[in-house]
């Protein structure tokens, strides 16, 4: 049976996934910037996951996060898969919780994005802790949080800017 409604939904989801994968690829080819914590990234693909959670709810967001980490696993190896999975899944749940507060006008998009960026970092470090068995990886958290605040504000602002265009397509 051909179900038109689900086909459209699947196609749109595929487009979102492709968008988030290409954004993270784009980020990975940028050269490391001096004075920034090593390995720190803007997390541009989180714009897409935020949009997915806002429009499609928790399941779409989780699916994008899991598929993204599988992709990371294929291209960058097992440790990238674990770290991406831990960070992605934790940040999606945080995001959903923050959207609850945003709907009650407590937080704006910047706050939602910053908090989910911070929990993305915590999830990634938890993954790194599992891989290395060393609690010292969490020593990296303060500098990641400082950078995550900047990155979170930027992605929140970009999301607000591109939201109308994305909503027109989706």
């Amino acid at each position, binding site marked *: 049976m051909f179900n038109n409604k689900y086909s459209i939904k699947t196609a749109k989801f595929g487009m979102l996934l492709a968008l988030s994968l290409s954004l993270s690829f784009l980020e990975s080819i940028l050269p*490391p910037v001096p004075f920034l914590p*090593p*390995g720190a990234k803007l997390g541009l693909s989180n714009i897409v996951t935020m949009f997915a959670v806002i429009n499609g709810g928790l399941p779409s967001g989780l699916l994008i996060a899991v598929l993204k980490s599988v992709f990371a696993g294929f291209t*960058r*190896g*097992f*440790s990238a898969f674990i*770290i991406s999975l831990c960070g992605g899944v934790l940040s999606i749940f945080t995001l959903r919780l923050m959207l609850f*507060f*945003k709907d009650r*006008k*407590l*937080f*704006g*998009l*910047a*706050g939602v994005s*910053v*908090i989910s960026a*911070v929990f993305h970092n915590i999830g990634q470090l938890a993954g*790194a802790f599992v*891989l*290395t*068995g*060393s609690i*010292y*990886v969490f*020593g*990296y*958290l*303060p*500098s990641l*949080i*400082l950078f995550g*605040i900047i990155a979170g*504000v930027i992605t*929140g*602002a970009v999301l*607000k800017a591109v*939201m109308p265009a994305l909503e027109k397509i989706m």
Partner: protein
Amino acid sequence: MDKIFRKCDALIIISLILLSMLALAAAGKPPFNKGGDLYAVIYVNGKEIEAIPLSSAEIGYEINTDTSPSTVIRIEKNCACFLNAECRDKICVNTGNLTKSGDAAACLPAGVVIVLKSAGKSKVDIIAY
């Protein structure tokens, strides 16, 4: 319309900045830094394999870890660092020199972590555990 900033945003952002600044300032100071000699402690997959007193490295030297991917660790009189790693992202190498107690660098694909620890006055406990 979705706003970018609301009151709670400013509150949470400022408190996060203060907290992480505080954590960064506290690192490398007492009680986290007990003073005394610095040791480069090397962990592979969570197990401590070596604790090297930096003062023993009159002349700098390199250690190869037989992990997969392999890494090269440089030990010098005042610092330790990852010189190279056979992985793609090189985050551990880009972390640069570890110079004070509490500094750490990690190569995740290899599961290798270097942490600088201060021995404190007793100089025994770090060797004993």
